[in-house]
């Protein structure tokens, strides 16, 4: 597995609506292997590898949980809205990096800040509304030279890969890595393959909702993370996904019940090729398969998920073995005819 590429893709910063860096990277990777490649109005990348069979869409997303500056106070502190499912305790005390073209400067500057909490008497009462960002400015005027209302930022954090695991604020893009590698490695396909790298997952799957219309696929398989349930907690409900047990074939999450035809097709493909798989049933987790399967009069949809812990935190973690199995599965799927599944 190309760990260097995994590190690169996950390590880029891509707040929702500001996915440019990942988009450029994906286009660069696929421009020589795709028959067609285009960017849709929301900024999603749609790469096609032509085939004679049904239209099959493999979808993933490019963005990550992120923040938007919505107010700068007179002392130069920044208030923000968040995009993605982020809880107070996951945000407080984290570092962020801004991704902005500062007014009057042409170069992208890297600016870091911290998320701090107002001093309030009753600490138990602290919540999202008490959080602000401190990037060291002393006045609104000074701040405005570097950041504008609407400016975007993401969690700061090095993408770490060792022999076993990856930790990265952009771990959600492991699906994009799987798709890019699949598109590159696959030989000819019996299917008309569309690899879709969606923008704005964290804004209620806006990118996926739009691109599914453009592609109008006959079948869709969505690649994303899934919450692993092997975390220490006496209270957590026992659901099937376990990090280290292989690629997770999605049966259900809170946005979709996958098409049985696709679930069996994916499972059979894994069995035939000795790919290690498990099943995913997630309860409070949504995926791109949700908006896709109800679009265009119904699209039979399935999913392949990479189990990860701490999905909604600054430092999610996944095991490399699971990413590798997902990649193997994606590659076998892409080269197998999607026939008579419904």
């Amino acid at each position, binding site marked *: 597995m190309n760990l260097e590429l995994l590190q690169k893709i996950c390590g880029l910063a891509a707040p929702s609506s500001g996915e440019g860096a990942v988009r450029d990277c994906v286009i660069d990777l696929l421009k020589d292997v795709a028959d067609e490649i285009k960017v849709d109005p929301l900024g999603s990348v749609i790469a096609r590898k032509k085939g004679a069979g049904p239209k099959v869409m493999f979808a993933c997303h490019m963005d990550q949980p992120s923040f938007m500056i919505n107010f700068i106070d007179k002392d130069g502190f920044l208030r923000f809205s968040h995009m993605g499912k982020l809880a107070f305790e996951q945000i407080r005390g984290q570092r962020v990096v801004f991704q902005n073209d500062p007014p009057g400067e042409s170069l992208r500057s890297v600016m870091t800040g911290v998320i701090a909490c107002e001093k309030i008497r009753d600490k138990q009462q602290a919540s999202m509304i008490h959080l602000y960002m401190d990037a060291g400015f002393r006045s609104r005027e000074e701040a405005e030279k570097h950041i504008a209302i609407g400016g975007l930022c993401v969690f700061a954090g090095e993408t770490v890969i060792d022999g076993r695991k990856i930790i990265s604020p952009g771990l959600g893009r492991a699906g994009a890595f799987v798709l890019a590698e699949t598109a590159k490695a696959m030989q000819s396909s019996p299917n008309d393959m569309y690899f879709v790298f969606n923008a704005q997952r964290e804004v209620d799957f806006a990118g996926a909702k739009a691109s599914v219309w453009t592609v109008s696929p006959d079948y869709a398989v969505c690649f994303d993370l899934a919450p692993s349930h092997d975390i220490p907690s006496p*209270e957590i*409900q*026992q*659901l*099937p996904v376990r990090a280290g047990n292989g690629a997770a074939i999605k*049966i*259900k999450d*809170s*946005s*979709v*019940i996958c098409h049985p035809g696709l*679930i069996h097709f994916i499972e059979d493909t894994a069995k035939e090729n000795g790919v290690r798989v498990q*099943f995913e*049933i997630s*309860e409070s987790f949504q995926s791109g398969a949700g908006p896709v*399967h*109800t*679009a*265009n*009069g*119904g*699209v*039979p949809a399935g999913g392949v998920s990479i189990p990860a812990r701490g999905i909604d935190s600054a430092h999610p973690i996944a095991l490399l073995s699971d990413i590798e199995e997902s990649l193997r599965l994606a590659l076998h799927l892409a080269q197998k005819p999607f026939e008579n599944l*419904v």
Partner: protein
Amino acid sequence: MEFAKYRCDVSADRFGNVIACKKGKQGGGKLMFAAHMDEIGLMVSQIDEQGFLKFSPIGGCDQRTLLSQEVIVHGRRDVFGVIGLKPPHLTSDEEQKKSVSIADMAIDIGFSQEEAEPLVRVGDIVTVRRKTIELRNDLLSGKSLDDKAGVAALLECAKNLVDYENTHDLYFAATAQKEAGIRGARAAAFNVNPDICVVVDAGFAKMPGLDAFSAIELGKGPAIAVGPNIRYAIFEVLKETAEKNEIMFQIDPIPGMSYTDAMFIQIAGRGVATGLISLPLKYMHTSVETVSMKDVTRAGTLLSCFTRSLNSRDLEMVLCS
């Protein structure tokens, strides 16, 4: 498939909705009636070491209604099971006061893990096993009458219109996956692309403990809903139709989201003029849901009279009046 008896072309769409069509004369519009055919249920999420099946809910499943139920696990073949409960002798006072959460329940099919695994798999659907019974006064009680009673009303309407020559194309949609997030209706509305759609779904009927919240009553006729989810002109036509044909009806004010198929059909495509008929139903989302068969029949009659009243009228004009 019952719809085929009433001269409809029946097909399933890609999502799994059943759509029955009765073509009208050329140049008419498209009328659609919809009711969902799914029910709340459970899904196997784990088979534990002792062979107990852990499960997740599909739809708004009330955990209090699951204890001591008989269930059917739809595995490789159907398997009976029960959801058991700790004996009261061994339950502390503290535990007695709380309702048991789904995470602490399990389905017992009588098998060990090794015996269960060839038969039952993670992802299998589970339904409550319940025979529908008749109560006095034409009442029917059982599981999943929300919204099979609505589908029955659609069938009644199709039956009434079997020999009827219609100007407009008539579509009956039995939608899938409503309880999982009103999903099938989105695909069905896209596929049919109707001008007008009337949805039939269950509404909360008055019962002890609910009098203050609910306006509709069992046995007093279908309730014609009114509110932002409903195009006012459709409400008016339905109401006038009921009055003219002396069909007993009630009015169901729904000031916000209706949480029915109408919610997404209304905003499908370029927008659909949507009506909603609430069938008064007691004990919603339990396995003893209760409806009045008279109300179901009346709802079917109301829909067929509604269809007749729109015959040879320009649907655009109906909506503008």
